[in-house]
């Protein structure tokens, strides 16, 4: 195992932000720690990096117990939420910082920096200052700076949080490709379930300082261990008193042995259509379907429909 955390606990006053966390993270995996804000996921990352000290528990990286070791000797690449660029250094000097600390010869540093600049696609920007870069470029520079020291583990704190939607989508695809290329054990923290599902091969769901469930994304999506995981990993709606996924429901023409109701509202989101149905028992489940399915049904607000679970 690349990283193993046992009984890891961090308290602020009486409040346990990270509460008895036990996790094993496999060598070369890309793990997403997913949870709502305040669930303790960023603190967990800082505990692994050594930027916070645990009140209890151990952090073991590649067999070495690093709990009492200063962050500077942990060989961890850390990318901060707001990238923390050294503002007074240009891109090349930012990326080379860790190598200068390690007293590498100048020609080695220059070669490594040039290689990383190409890897993170910042060609031609080596003399630019962080202030002259876009958000996505700063993020890639921070990534290159962390990778320069050839870390044993790469930790990314909300790596795409501060970017606009399109750059976000591009960058997460790129991070996934980059990870396949360099295979360094990576943990990223996010509150966005789509992002976690898309990028990661392992998920850790955190809630109130505890790990709710760990495993592969599809496994968690299909077999959530708790109500919280079920609700957090995708949309849910109440049907017959239980919480289900809206895409597991379907609308059919009235009186086919299904529950009857009327269409209360319709929201068309391009390919996807969401319809809310008012049932006689007063509940209002919503159904997610494709645009085509909706067209074939040929219903609108006020129409009588039946609703049932998909088989």
């Amino acid at each position, binding site marked *: 195992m690349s990283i193993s955390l046992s009984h890891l606990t961090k308290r602020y006053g009486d409040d346990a932000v990270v509460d008895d966390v036990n996790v094993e993270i496999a060598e070369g995996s890309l793990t997403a720690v997913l949870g709502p804000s305040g669930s303790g996921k960023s603190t967990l990352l800082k505990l692994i990096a050594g930027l916070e000290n645990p009140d209890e528990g151990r952090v073991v990286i590649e067999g070495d117990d690093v709990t009492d070791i200063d*962050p500077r000797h942990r060989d961890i690449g850390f990318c901060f939420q707001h990238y923390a660029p050294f503002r007074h250094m240009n891109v090349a000097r930012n990326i080379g910082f860790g190598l200068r600390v390690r007293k590498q010869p100048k020609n080695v540093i220059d070669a490594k920096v040039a290689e990383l600049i190409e890897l993170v696609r910042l060609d031609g920007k080596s003399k630019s*200052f962080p202030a002259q870069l876009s958000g996505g470029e700063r993020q890639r520079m921070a990534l290159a700076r962390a990778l320069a020291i050839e870390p044993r583990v790469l930790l990314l704190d909300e790596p795409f949080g501060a970017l606009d939607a399109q750059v976000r989508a591009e960058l997460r695809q790129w991070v996934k490709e980059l990870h396949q290329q360099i295979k360094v054990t990576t943990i990223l923290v996010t509150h966005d379930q789509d992002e976690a599902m898309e990028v990661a091969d392992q998920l850790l769901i955190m809630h109130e300082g505890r790990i709710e469930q760990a495993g592969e994304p599809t496994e968690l999506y299909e077999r959530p261990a708790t109500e919280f995981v079920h609700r957090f990993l995708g949309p849910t709606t109440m049907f017959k008193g239980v919480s289900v996924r809206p895409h597991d429901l379907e609308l059919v023409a009235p009186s086919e042995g299904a529950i009857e109701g009327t269409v209360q509202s319709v929201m068309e989101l391009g390919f996807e259509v969401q319809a809310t149905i008012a049932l006689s028992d007063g509940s209002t489940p919503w159904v997610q379907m494709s645009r085509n399915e909706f067209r074939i049904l040929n219903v609108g607000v006020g129409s009588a429909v039946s609703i049932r679970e998909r088989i």
Partner: protein
Amino acid sequence: MNHTTRKWSLRLVVTLYLGLLVGLPVGYLFIEAFSHGFHAFWVEVTKPDAIAALKLSAEVALIAVPVNTLVGVGAALVLARRKFFGSRALTLAFDIPVAVSPIIIGVALVLAYSRIGWFGSWLSTHGIQILFSPVGIVMATMAVSLPYVLRSVLPVLIEVGKDQEDAARTLGAGAFRTFWQVTLPAIRWGVLYGVTLTIARTLGEFGAVLVVSGNITGKTQTLPIYIYDAWDQNYDTVGAFAGALVLASISIVALIILSTLRARERKLHVDLA
């Protein structure tokens, strides 16, 4: 009133205000200092007592400014990066010397270090003389210029945040390298601004120094006290104006250097973001 008139009348008010408070007095200072020609000015500023006063002021500044800079930056780092019991009381303690009149600082120092106080009498039995000596002047000066560096650096440190320092740590940098290569470049304008204010205050301090120095001409007379003496005791107006001009010029030059450096840095786009 249309937009242009409003803009120009606002500028006029500001210019008049600054002119009455700063421009006119400083202008007069220049005119009067040279009223008997450059030669008379030069004779005044090269008088032995004037030179001695200038030298003492410079020596006091050479000690007080570096010490207060180190203390100010150090205290700012501690206050910005660590939360501890009594941190607010500490910040407050730094502000007390500028919040009260300098005369009070002077009198308080006399009380504490003269033979009236137990500490002062203990010192004097061990042959240590603080009052009426350059040591007392340095202490009084450091007290009244204490918070300037702290006050200029603390908000910058808080604004810059801890992330760059944490990043440097994860990349392997120790405390020393992190301070010189990451923290200090990030706060350098705050430090320089604080140092400039400290220099100005250090050179200009009058009240507290007057009380503790004993005003011994040629020995414990700093430049401001020399100017006051020339003006008030010796009716030497040209001497007073000449000394005042030298004092004012040093501070004005320091401010000009600071703003020029800063403007050049801005042009390089380094300080933005």
